[in-house]
Structure formats: structure tokens, C-alpha cells
């Protein structure tokens, strides 16, 4: 196995030496380098390929936020992590775009190891370097202007409602992903697992949401010409799948965390499709055409064309953003749940079924990402007899 290459940046040499000693037991897995300033870090990055860069925030000259902006520009496929003692909100807002994950000092080796290992392992999902570069450079997902506008109006009103802000954000895949990234990382306060977008909004507080809204390009990303018509149906479909996945999890008596994860994963399951649709609409359409021609499922068409399907693209992005594992797993495998490493009823089960049923009740619409229920997978879980009940939920939801 090749060793992972990680670059640590901190203006305090004693911190770097401490990290070197701390990570000494992992020297077989990781090759660690150090830089005492942003400039030195950029030099090292240009000399050799790194899997991840972990930087302090407050440094004289170029600070962590500036450094990561630069790394994003020059080495988009490198995972970008902040390890900071303390920084003010303004700096953190500035870093919220280019930073994949935010850790605070003091940080134990377990958290550090887990974060880095996961980020690096996820990279294996995307075998093609060009795709890795594309996804790595994303600060956010493409977002729809209308929701943004409504959100802005609500936030600027004299007495904004927490609930309404939560509802608006959950209608938008991009903003949902962003607030989850922020609460799951320690951007603003301690990292926290949440069960819903509203809870995330509550954790962050309206002030932070408002500041994020005003920080350029944190909440909405670039969209290529002709992408909008591809993006819009994904939005409606995601909303439906999120709601249905929650209901399925609830019907199975899953605990609140699983229900919440199912809903969030449902809302985010096509994040990868959004990325592909917004950035390469031509190829995205082509993948569908290839699938039709060869009579294979659409995700298989994507694998042929991109070397990965949209589930993997989404999972990679959400993974390096520090979104919790059950959600990332559900996103990654929502078209082929049987290949997932976990067993039993998981958010993946709910999302896979909800996604397939959504297509079923919608009829064969070409603009959405067609899939069908993997009955063998359900059979193995002993849940096949539940399918009709779930189908009923889907029909009811469609009617509502």
C-alpha cells in the first residue's frame, strides 16, 4: 500500500514537532511533511503530490484561509483541513469556502487519524484524476436562485423565523449539504451530529447563516450553460426522496438518528448528479444516452463515461466535507445497496427504496436518474415483504 502524504502547516514549530512525535506510530501508513508558513507550504505542494494539507489558521503573512484558497486553486484534489487553536468568526467565514473540514486544537490523534484516513480513503472512490480535481475544487454545490432569494428575504426581515429558514434551506440540496458540513465540523462551535436541517440551523444560529449568505460563493456555485434544466428536476426529486426515506425509516421503527440520517441522505443522495449536471451537462446527458442505447442502468453509463457513478461522486464530496458516514454510505451506494459494507436496515436501505419508488410513482421520466428496487438486497435483509407498504407511502406522498 502506498503511504498517504500529508502536509502539516503551523507557524509554531513546537506544534509541528509535537505532531511528528504524535504520528510517529503511524509512520508506516503516512508520510508526513511540515511547513512553518503558507509560502513554504505552497512550495512543498508544488514539489510533490500530497493527499491532504492540515493547516493552522492564524499565521503571520499568509493565514490559513488564504493558504487554503490558494491550495484550492492550484491543487484542487488535495484534501484541505484546518487545525486551529482559536480564530474569529470573520476568519472562519473566510475559510468556510475552501476548507473541507475544521478541527480545533487541542486535537487528539484519534480524531486526526480518523479524519485523515477517511478523507484519503474516500479519494479511492474516484479513480479518475480529472473527476477528483473537479470535485475537490468545489466549495459548494450548485444551488437554485429562487430558494436563495427567499432565504435572503427571510434572513433580512426584522424578525426572521428559525423554522422558515430551516424549511427553505432543506429545499435546496446545496445549502443542506453546506450547513451539515459546518455543524459536523467545528467551524462554529463543537462538532455535532444533527438529525435535520432545522436542528443544524438551530446549532449554527441565524447570525452565522446570515453571514454565510453574505460570504461570496459559500451557498451557491457555478453552473454551466444549459445545466439549469438538469438541476431543477433533481431538486424536486431530492426533496421527495428525503421525505419518503424518513417515512420509511419511521415505518420500520428506526431510531431518531437513523430517521434523520435517512432524510438528510435522501435530500443529498443526488449531490453527485448535481455536480456532474452543473459542471459537465453535455457528458451528463451523454451518459444517459449511452445507458439507453446499451440498455443498462444509468449509473452504469456514468461509470463507463466518468469512471464513477453520481453516487460515488456525491459520496466523495460529502465525505471530504466531513458529513457523517451513514449518510455518505447511503449516497455512495443508493443505486447498488448490495455492495455496501454494512448490513441490516440503514439509512441506505431507506434512501435506495425511496429513490427507486420515487421513479416508479413518477413514471419513466428521462430527466431523473432512473433506478429500480433491488429486491434481492431486500430479500437478504428479510424486508421484501415490506415493499408494498412502502410503495403505499410513496403513492400517498405523491398524492399529497
Amino acid at each position, binding site marked *: 500500500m502506498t503511504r498517504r502524504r500529508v502536509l502539516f502547516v503551523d507557524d509554531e514549530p513546537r506544534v509541528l*514537532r509535537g505532531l511528528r*512525535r*504524535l504520528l*510517529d506510530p503511524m509512520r508506516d501508513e503516512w508520510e508526513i511533511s511540515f511547513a512553518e508558513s503558507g509560502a513554504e507550504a505552497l512550495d512543498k505542494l508544488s514539489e510533490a503530490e500530497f493527499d491532504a494539507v492540515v493547516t493552522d489558521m492564524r499565521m*503571520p503573512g499568509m493565514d490559513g484561509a488564504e493558504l487554503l484558497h490558494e491550495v484550492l486553486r492550484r491543487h484542487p484534489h488535495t484534501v484541505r483541513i484546518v487545525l*486551529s*487553536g482559536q480564530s474569529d468568526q470573520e476568519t472562519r467565514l473566510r475559510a468556510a469556502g475552501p476548507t473541507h473540514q475544521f478541527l*480545533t486544537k487541542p486535537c487528539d490523534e484519534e480524531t486526526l487519524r480518523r479524519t485523515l484516513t477517511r478523507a484519503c480513503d474516500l479519494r479511492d472512490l474516484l479513480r479518475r484524476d480529472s473527476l477528483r480535481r473537479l470535485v475537490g475544487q468545489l466549495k459548494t454545490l450548485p444551488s437554485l436562485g429562487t430558494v436563495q432569494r427567499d432565504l435572503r428575504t427571510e434572513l433580512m426581515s426584522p424578525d426572521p423565523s428559525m423554522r422558515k429558514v430551516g424549511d427553505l434551506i432543506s429545499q435546496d440540496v446545496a445549502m443542506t449539504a453546506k450547513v451539515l458540513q459546518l455543524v459536523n465540523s467545528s467551524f462554529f462551535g463543537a462538532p455535532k451530529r444533527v438529525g435535520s436541517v432545522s436542528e443544524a440551523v438551530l446549532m449554527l444560529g441565524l447570525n452565522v447563516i446570515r453571514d454565510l449568505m453574505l460570504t461570496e460563493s459559500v451557498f451557491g456555485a457555478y453552473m454551466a450553460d444549459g445545466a439549469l434544466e438538469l438541476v431543477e428536476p433533481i431538486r424536486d426529486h431530492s426533496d421527495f426522496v428525503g421525505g419518503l426515506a424518513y417515512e420509511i425509516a419511521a415505518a420500520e421503527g428506526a431510531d431518531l438518528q437513523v430517521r434523520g440520517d435517512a432524510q438528510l441522505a435522501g435530500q443529498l443522495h443526488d449531490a453527485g448528479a448535481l455536480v456532474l449536471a452543473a459542471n459537465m451537462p453535455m457528458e451528463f446527458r451523454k451518459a444517459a444516452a449511452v445507458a439507453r442505447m446499451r440498455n443498462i442502468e444509468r449509473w452504469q453509463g456514468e461509470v463507463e463515461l466518468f469512471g464513477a457513478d453520481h453516487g460515488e461522486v456525491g459520496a466523495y464530496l460529502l465525505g471530504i466535507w466531513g458529513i457523517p458516514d451513514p449518510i455518505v454510505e447511503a449516497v455512495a451506494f443508493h443505486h447498488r445497496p448490495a455492495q455496501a459494507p454494512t448490513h441490516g436496515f440503514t439509512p441506505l436501505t431507506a434512501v435506495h427504496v425511496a429513490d427507486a419508488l420515487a421513479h416508479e410513482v413518477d413514471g419513466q421520466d428521462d430527466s431523473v436518474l432512473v433506478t429500480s428496487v433491488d429486491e434481492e438486497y431486500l430479500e437478504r435483509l428479510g424486508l421484501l415483504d415490506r415493499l408494498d407498504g412502502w410503495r403505499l407511502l410513496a403513492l400517498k406522498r405523491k398524492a399529497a
Partner: protein
Amino acid sequence: MNRDLRDPGGAYLEACAGRLAVERPTVTELQRLLEPKRRGRRPDDHEPLRCLAIDAQGGPSREMAKLLDKTDQRWILDRAERLPTALEALSSGEFHIVLAHVRQPDGQVLNALQRMRQVAPETAVLVLTEFAPQAFAEQALGQGAQDVLQRSKLDASTLAHAIRYSIERQRIRGLYERELWSASILHMDYLSIVSNSADAILILNQGGSVEFLNPAAESMFGVRAAEAIGRPCPFGQVTSDSFEIEVPDREGRPRQAEVQSVETSWRGLDATLAVVRDITDRRALELQLGQAQKLESVGRLAAGIAHEINTPTQFITDNVKYLRGVFERFVPAVAAAESLLEAAEAGPLDQGALEELRTSVAAARLEDAREEVPEAFEDSLDGLKQVARIVGAMKVFAHPGSEEKTGVDLRQAIESTVAVARHEWRDVADVELDIEETLPTVPAMGGDLNQVILNLIVNASQAIEDRPNCTERGRIDIRAHRRGDWVEMCVSDNGVGIPDENRKHIFDPFFTTKEVGRGTGQGLSISRTIVVERHGGMLDVASKPGEGSTFTVRLPLTEEAALQGAA
């Protein structure tokens, strides 16, 4: 304070009764006065004289007409038989003169005159009688008639003469009354200001006794004007232009008030005008504002201190974990060495034990440890020292918020504040201290003083940070020296400097050029309050845009110096 304008402070008016002998006009009278058509006037050259005869019989009117015909004046004579008709005609304001024929000189006539005056104050009234006792004539003049003529003695020239003079006299009387009344209105307006003022206003004569006080003064000092006038001033001597006093409120709780005095005159004599303002609420607000600013600076310090502590915590923890790992690697090696030693002492060398020792020694990686371990200890001890230093400085800085002045070691105050604020400056500047060795302790409120030093350091750091296109490290110089009865502390930076147009505002509350989130604009204003008002010191700034600024704090070492500073 919602007093009737017509009755500005009954107590005051009572007290001043007799002194203010101006008859107040009624509202209708005031309104009528202001109507332009109510100015009394002569008929101009192309205008006939407009006369209104009041005459029940008609004979006297005809007689008047005949006499008027003999004058060279053009005229028009209207006749009213009864008073109500006459009043209605007069209200139009068209008539120059009223010729009122009176058969019976009695009270009714006087009433009628009064009513005519109310309706048309500008119109002259001539009374014609069959006979006129002197007393009646005088009463009639008192009620506004311009002349009383006996009909039998009247000829054309007398009538013309009387008419002309009456009109002119009426016009002059109008002017005079207007003057008098406007003076009265003006007086009322001033009275209303003084009576409705929330500040207590007192006039004190040269002997220090009260000549006048307004209702606010009555309520502030709990006295009635009638009792207070002529008595000594309720708050004692006026000692300077501006000073503070304490006044108990109705429940006996002390309230703070500020007295501003100015020399004036009262009834032609030199006197002192004292304005006393209750500043208790303002003081409380100022105190709250000071607390808020303190919280703001503590908040930003906390963030900085967290960073200063979190960083060493990170590497100390890393090092300790590393050292634990080294120890865990070494234990088997030493244990193996021990058992080998035992075996060697017991008999021939045991190859198995030797092999075991070889393996565990290799695993211990002595070479690595020899390099890393001493440095790991050094770094950790350094880090602990850093944590201890910042915690110690915080303790000094936080200084139990005493409201009493105590002897403050300025060097310690500066050093600890520089240490706790390290986070503010360490990325942008170097701080140089130049503190006189034998600096005496300064009588001061330690917590407040630290806050001033902190504000100046934060300010200097931000000024350096704000230099456009400049990445060079800045420099902050803090000097403290004794200057006679004063101690002087200067905080200089080579930052952006303060533009001239901002310099005079920088000590104003809420004045800030910083973007939102970087400060509320309270720092310098609060610093000024602390230095000047709470310590009797001075806070000045010298600045050159583009080169930097120097803030100078001077604190008095003695009471005399403090007084001198205040003056």
C-alpha cells in the same frame, strides 16, 4: 411636565405675584391682535371716512350728516338703531369711527363700549350725549371711548377735529397695546421654558440667597418657592462654574446632580444663575457602557488567550503521548536486559534471552528516542511555562475590579496587559517596552488602567494591520516615565495614522472607522472617561497619516496635580 401653558407653575406665580404685573391677554384677544385688518388706520386720500352712527331715533344721525357735509372730508355714514346690529357691522372691520349717541349716560353705555372694544379694538368710538357728567365721561374713556362730546355744543369744525384726533389716538393706542402684549407673550414663552425645564434653575443673589427658582428646582430640593425665596441656596455655596452635588430624592436615596453656574443679573443686580441637572441615570448608563466595553475587550482577549493556551496544549499533549509510547517501547527492552542479566549471573549465556533482548532493543529505537525525547521534554516544559505565564498575566490583568484607587505598579500593569494581549499584536508587530526603573506606584483603579492599556494596544495593532500594501512587521513602543508630579505613558505605533478630520472625533463614543465586528467604537471613548474623569489625568493623541500615532496618558501622582489637571 405637561403643564398648562397659561399656568406655568402655580407655586412660582404665587411666589412672584406682584412682581409680574402684566395683564395677560385672553386667547381671543391675542388672535384678534394678529389679524392684519385689525390694525387701526386713518382713511387714505381717495377713501371716504366710514362712520357708523348708533342712534335709536335718527335725528342725531341726520344732524351729524349735516355737520359732516360742512367739512372737506368725503364721508359715508351708516346707521345702526340697536347695539347688536352695530356690533355685527363693526365686526367687518370696515369702519374708521363709531358715533354713538347716548340718551341716558348709565352703566349700559359702559357695557356697550366694552363690547364694541372686544369686537373691533381698532375702531375709535366717539360718544355724543345730551348732557354728560364729568364722572361718566371719565368712565367712558376708561372703557375705550376716545372722546365724549355734548351734542348741543357741536359744530362742524369741532366734530371734524374730534373725529380726526380720535382715529389717530385709537391707532396709537393699538400700537401701544400690541407692543405691550407682545412683550407679555414673550415673557410667557420664556416663563414656559423655565417652568417646564427638567433641569432645576435657580437665581442666587450676591449674598447666596435664592431670588428665584423654577418648579424643577422645587421638586429636586423638595421646597416650595414661597418658602425658598430669600433663603440660602439649598445646595450650599456655588464653588465653581461646574461641579457635582448629591441630592437625596423623596425616599432619601442619593442622586447625583451636576451644577453649571454662570454670572448674570437679576433685577439690575449682579447674580448667579445655577442650572442643576440630575445625572444619576446618565452615570448609570455610562457605567453600563464601560462594563459593556470591558466585556467586549474581555471577549476578544478570551479568544486570543484560548489560542495562546490551546496551541501549547496541543503540542504538550502530543509530546506526552509520544513519551508514553517511548516508555512503553523501553520497558520490554529493559525487562529483557534484566532477565538476561539474571541469566548471565546464574550460568552460561542463554541464547534465547539474548535474542529476546536484541528484538526488544531494536523495537525500542533508542537512536530515535535519544534525539526526540529531550526535545519533547524541552518543548513541553516551554509550553507549560507559556501557559503559566499567560494565566499569571491574566490574573494580574483581571485585577479585582476595585472602585478604590490603590497604588498600581504601572510596569506590572503594562507587562501583564502586553502578555494577555499578545494574540492581538504578535502577528503584526513587535512590542518594545521602555519603562523607567524607579517608576513610583500610581494611585489608580488597577482594572480600569489595564483596560486603557489594552485598548491602546489593540488600537495600535489594528492601525498597523490596516496599513495598505504592507507586510513588514510593525512596531509598538510603550514608554512610561515620571514627569514631576505626573506619570506619563506613551503608546506609539507605526500604523496608518489618523486622518486630520477623524482626530477630533476619535474620543467620541461610538465613533469608529472599523468595519462591523471589529469594535464598537467604545474603546477610546471609555479610555478617555477612565483617564480624565476617573483619574483626573489626560489622554492625548498625536498622529501623522501614513506614519503612525502616539497616544499619551498622563496620570497625576498627587492630589494637587489631579486638581491642576482638572483645571
